[in-house]
């Protein structure tokens, strides 16, 4: 999940009787699966929760370009480099779709980006891990984009129209990302040297748990989920999504001929799902608080990009102004 621990400001759900007439009408619309659009009345909490969630999601897409950007100049072949650049450009595009959706709620893009830079807005914990070898590009595409897809497919049905439409566009593009990643790993496992195969297993060992953390805390540790689910911003719980991801990923892992760094991972005939071990939640909260391996570096890089690109934006405005004056004079 690209949005973790999104605050809703609600400690418990309001009953129908406690709601104002507008709130009740709103809730009935949501219950009837009518999409909410920008100009419709909505509770302030709904608006704020969406701004938080969509901006966090957008920031994740943008920061998510950095671990992969690390490998553009190091990609083993021109083909791999082109594929990687296409994927990174998609992530930028996904960020833009999401910022646009967020702006329909009256939020300002620059302000939200400023909050990210000040450490007031979060992005997915996963992007605070380094990408150390080429197999990481495969594992990121397969596991990280794979986890994102599980979450985003469900979000296509989210109650807010612009968010839902952004998700539909994003999902269309994501499957390329996941396949691209899996193919990198598959090629390394099939045709690679022993050393290259070891790189694949190493990448999986490092990224497996962080990928599972993407879905956020357990349902009973997720105080905001209930309200988000009632508003149908979220459609499935963190634990449900995590289980879906594991169930679909383990057979792909086995096909690669690799293993997960989890001794408790095994098929449960009774439940029809995989059982798996406990996530290191201390690590999750540490990374979220800003103490992961790459948090500082990621934010520094983002700030630098904005600051050092300022002259380009100013030049674009000056050029547009000049063109306008010329056409008026003519």
């Amino acid at each position: 999940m690209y949005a973790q621990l999104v605050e809703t400001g609600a400690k418990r759900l309001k009953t129908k009787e406690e709601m104002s007439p507008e709130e009740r009408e709103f809730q009935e619309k949501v219950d009837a699966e009518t999409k909410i659009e920008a100009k419709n009345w909505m509770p302030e909490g709904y608006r704020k929760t969406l701004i938080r969630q969509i901006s966090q999601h957008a920031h994740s897409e943008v920061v998510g370009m950095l671990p992969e950007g690390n490998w553009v100049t190091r990609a083993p072949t021109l083909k791999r480099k082109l594929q990687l650049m296409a994927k990174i450009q998609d992530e930028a595009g996904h960020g833009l779709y999401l910022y646009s959706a967020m702006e329909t709620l009256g939020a300002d893009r620059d302000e939200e980006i400023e909050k990210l830079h000040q450490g007031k807005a979060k992005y997915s914990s996963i992007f605070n891990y380094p990408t150390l070898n080429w197999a990481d590009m495969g594992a990121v595409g397969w596991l990280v984009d794979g986890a994102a897809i599980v979450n985003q497919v469900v979000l296509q049905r989210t109650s807010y129209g612009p968010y839902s439409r952004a998700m539909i566009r994003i999902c269309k593009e994501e499957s390329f990302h996941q396949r691209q990643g899996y193919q990198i790993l598959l090629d390394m496992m099939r045709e690679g040297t022993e050393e290259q195969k070891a790189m694949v297993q190493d990448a999986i060992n490092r990224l497996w748990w962080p990928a599972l953390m993407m879905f956020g805390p357990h349902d009973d540790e997720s105080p905001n989920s209930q309200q988000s689910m009632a508003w149908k911003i979220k459609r499935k719980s963190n634990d449900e999504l995590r289980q879906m991801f594991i169930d679909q990923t383990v057979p792909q892992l086995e096909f690669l001929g690799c293993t997960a760094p989890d001794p408790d991972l095994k098929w449960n005939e009774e439940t029809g799902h995989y059982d798996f071990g406990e996530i290191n939640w201390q690590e999750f909260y540490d990374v979220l608080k800003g103490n992961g391996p790459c948090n500082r570096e990621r934010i520094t890089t983002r700030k630098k990009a904005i600051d050092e690109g300022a002259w380009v934006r100013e030049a674009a405005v000056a050029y547009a102004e000049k063109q306008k004056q010329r056409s008026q004079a003519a």
Partner: protein
Amino acid sequence: MSEWRLYEVFVRSKHGLNHKHVGSVHAADAEMAMENARELYTRRSEGVSIWVVPSDTITASASDEKEVLFDPSEDKVYRHASFYKLPDEVGHM
């Protein structure tokens, strides 16, 4: 970027179809909006033609006024072909 104007983007996906709203972009001017829209919305041959329109020039019906605007058409069933029942013998019309 907030000082840049917001443009709505419409894409004609195939010859013969209408332009359809796909999203928005920020840009310093229309030409840049067009370039940004092309990069953002048509990287996989999603279109054959793009319109960019400054968002603040669009006049929209308020969605909460739905009833006022659209209700009158609800009681004009005679505007639909299905209102007119024909005997089976007439065949397809």
